[in-house]
């Protein structure tokens, strides 16, 4: 039986930086060097077995210095979670919470913000835990019951919405091991949920109501029985096609190319042997050679980049602009585009590129060098300083293009005052150019 290969190359700051971007939200200043000193094993362990889940640093504020009101004010929910990404001492827990939000994508466009925050706590609780327990709890989660019409599904009026997505998107994959008949029968097993709605309180008192449940026999995925919602979830999660789906999907959040066949099989066995727990999978994936392959870069999701930029410059949430900035970049938390989540293969086009520019401008505007700063006008020196601002290395190609820009900008200085002023203006612009360079948009 093949095993999961393990990375044996150098584990320096560059690899640690990659690990922190993939399994978290990028390094704070100096963090990559510190993590590198631990070596690969202890570095990965520090992520998969975090010693503290506490948040570190000043509490988030809006632009007027007031505490956030995530339940009440538009965009504050997004910033509330973004703040956790910036300040968490357990970045992988926060990153996996984001993975589950994408996996079981639910939107406040249907559920209430209050319920979304409840679901968020649920996802965080299960972040590194059992996939089966997570799927069970998500199935009866109030936000999900509203979002995919679980509460509209009764023995009198069968609503297929959740049954279909449970198999297609959450546990098996489109058309893998089930047919239209299974969708309809599984929907019957999932009947019975109810809730109450009232003026003022909104939707509440989510419950299982025997009256609404179809107690008859169902034929699902080749099995027959008087299945209920728990059976429905277990039938899907324990189906023979599910481990390969879970492993490949989870892998895809960390590594852009599919797992080699042997690795995939080994991970699937590991997953089943460990009672469908996720932590052992993460332990293996985060040590896999492909994670550290320089030729396998991934585009940073918008909220990951936003949190990472804030971490890099040591800034917290002090404006709710991050909600619309991330929205324009294509990732508003608690509002994924649809039940299949965000499309991780298409983060960047001309519109979302501009939004990344604006995210960078939010950082750079606060941190801009003032006109009095003294700078050498040497292009290489200007580029080096700007890269240090983000604490990021640059490829030779990018550095070359940026130095050409700096040279052209400085060459435009004819007057004495221009020769003095342009280095600062150029370095400010270089920070922007680095933030939107392919080097920094990917990790």
């Amino acid at each position: 039986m093949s095993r999961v290969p393990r990375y044996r190359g150098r584990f320096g700051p560059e690899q640690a930086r990659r690990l922190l971007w993939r399994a978290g939200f990028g390094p704070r200043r100096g963090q990559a060097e510190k993590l590198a000193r631990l070596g690969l094993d202890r570095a990965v362990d520090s992520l998969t077995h975090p010693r503290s889940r506490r948040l570190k640093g000043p509490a988030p504020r809006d632009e007027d210095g007031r505490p956030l009101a995530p339940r009440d004010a538009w965009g504050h929910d997004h910033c509330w979670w973004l703040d956790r990404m910036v300040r968490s001492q357990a970045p992988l827990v926060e990153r996996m919470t984001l993975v589950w939000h994408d996996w079981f994508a639910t939107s406040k466009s249907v559920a209430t913000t209050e319920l979304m925050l409840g679901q968020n706590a649920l996802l965080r609780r299960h972040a590194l835990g059992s996939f089966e327990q997570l799927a069970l709890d998500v199935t009866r989660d109030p936000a999900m019951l509203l979002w995919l019409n679980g509460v509209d599904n009764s023995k009198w009026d069968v609503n297929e919405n959740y049954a279909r997505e449970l198999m297609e998107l959450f546990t098996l994959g489109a058309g893998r091991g089930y047919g239209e008949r299974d969708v309809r029968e599984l929907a019957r097993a999932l009947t019975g949920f109810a809730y109450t709605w009232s003026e003022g309180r909104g939707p509440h008192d989510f419950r299982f109501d025997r009256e609404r449940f179809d107690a008859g026999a169902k034929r699902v995925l080749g099995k027959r029985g008087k299945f209920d919602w728990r059976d429905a979830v277990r039938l899907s999660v324990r189906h023979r096609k599910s481990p390969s789906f879970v492993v490949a999907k989870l892998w895809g959040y960390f590594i852009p190319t599919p797992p080699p066949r042997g690795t995939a099989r080994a991970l699937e066995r590991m997953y089943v042997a460990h009672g469908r727990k996720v932590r052992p999978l993460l332990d293996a994936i985060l040590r896999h050679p492909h994670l550290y392959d320089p030729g396998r870069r991934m585009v940073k999701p918008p909220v990951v980049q936003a949190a990472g930029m804030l971490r890099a410059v040591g800034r917290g949430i002090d404006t709710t602009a991050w909600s619309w900035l991330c929205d324009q970049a294509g990732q508003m938390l608690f509002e994924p585009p649809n039940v299949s989540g965000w499309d991780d293969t298409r983060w960047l086009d001309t519109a979302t590129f501009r939004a990344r520019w604006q995210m960078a401008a939010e950082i750079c505007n606060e941190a801009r060098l003032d006109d009095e700063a003294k700078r050498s006008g040497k292009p290489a020196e200007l580029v080096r300083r700007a890269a240090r601002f983000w604490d990021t290395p640059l490829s030779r190609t990018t550095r070359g293009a940026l130095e050409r820009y700096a040279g052209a900008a400085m060459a435009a200085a004819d007057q004495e005052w221009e020769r003095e002023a342009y280095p600062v203006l150029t370095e400010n612009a270089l920070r922007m150019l680095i933030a939107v360079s392919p080097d920094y948009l990917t990790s």
Partner: protein
Amino acid sequence: MSHDARICCAEHARAGAGLPAIEPGMPTPAGTGLSRRSFLMRSAGLALAVYGAGRLPAFEEGIARAQAGGPGTVLVNVFLDGGADSLSILAPIGDSEYRRLRPTLGIPEGGQAFSEDARLMWNPNAAPLAALHAEGKVSVLPAVGYTSPDQSHFVSRHYWEVGALDAGLRSGWLGRLLDVVGSDDNPLQGVSMGGSLGPSLAATRVPVAAVDAPEDFGFWAPGSWGPPGDLAIPAFADVGRALARSRDPAVAQAARAAAFAGGVRASLAPLGNDGEPTYVPQATYPTAEHRFPKRLAGLAAMLGAGLPVRCATLTAPGAWDTHANQAEEFPQNLKLTADSLFAFQRDLEARGIADRVLTLVWTEFGRRAEENGSGTDHGAAGIGFVIGTRATGRMIGEFPGLASLDPQGNLRATSDFRGLYAALAADWFGVDPAAVLPGGGGFPRPAVVR
């Protein structure tokens, strides 16, 4: 472009004084009747973009060249996301099964009759479409789909986006069309009006773009101005061009986005800045929170300005996946969509460019004929429209009736979307459908263009 654009760009060109000259070997815009100098004058920031042009051509120049080639036909692709309930848009009130299947959601009588099939009635919220239909400008596909319909949103939408029943195909049908009719230096030829790129535009060879609004595509570098600030835009495009052919797909995606954005920025500059349009819509669009009407107005202005757009994609407002509460959400979504499309058509007509624009409205499937209580579940055949002065205005495929549903209780398709695509490729773009659609010659091609 206008005289004003020339003035604005002359200033930009001055700001670029001191740059290296145009690289030797850069292609000249042959056959356009325009000298290189005039390109430099017409396209904002162009002189700045040309230095060190890297491995891809400067897109400003490509856009200008495409523009100088004269206007081409345009297809506007509007997606109703979630599977719109066709039986509530053209309601079969004359079908004896309708009231039984739709006891609560059936559309009450009183709407305008559909002149091509006495059983069908326009939903009153779709009255603007009925009006355009009466003018002969709407071809209706009352039951469009494909054989062995898939009831997954994502699978079925994917089929429509890629133009084939192929779950593994990664390029979009409009992208492949642009691979044939487009050029490798004009990202505006395929543009998504909205926050992100429509999957149907995914090309294999040529660049495409996404723009929320033409007046909202500026780039400002804090703490930088004068030449260092002005040069920053061509500089990010330059970094992008240098890495656009990276073998790493993530790097290439980031690099191409940067390179294309630089070119698009220059072309859109004359239409507005900082969110302030300098164009005036030539029709009254509905006011709404959703940006759909604004995006259509912006697109009309871009087309009116002669920008070389060939395919544009938009997503219509609202969620059409009405599993529940259909009676509350559906009517307002339909009304806003129909009102906006009507204004867009009038805008194009007022600008005198309606004869070169067709609008295709589609959705990934229709919905189950029998309601589920307060909503409808996923169905099979759905509804489509082709709108424009050059549309034939005749129904494509007939309404199959509710007495002959498929075994799952869904409407059967009477036309195939691949035949529709083939007709648009051949008759609207003059492209051999086989070059765009896998097995593209195989489907009967309806008469959609007059």
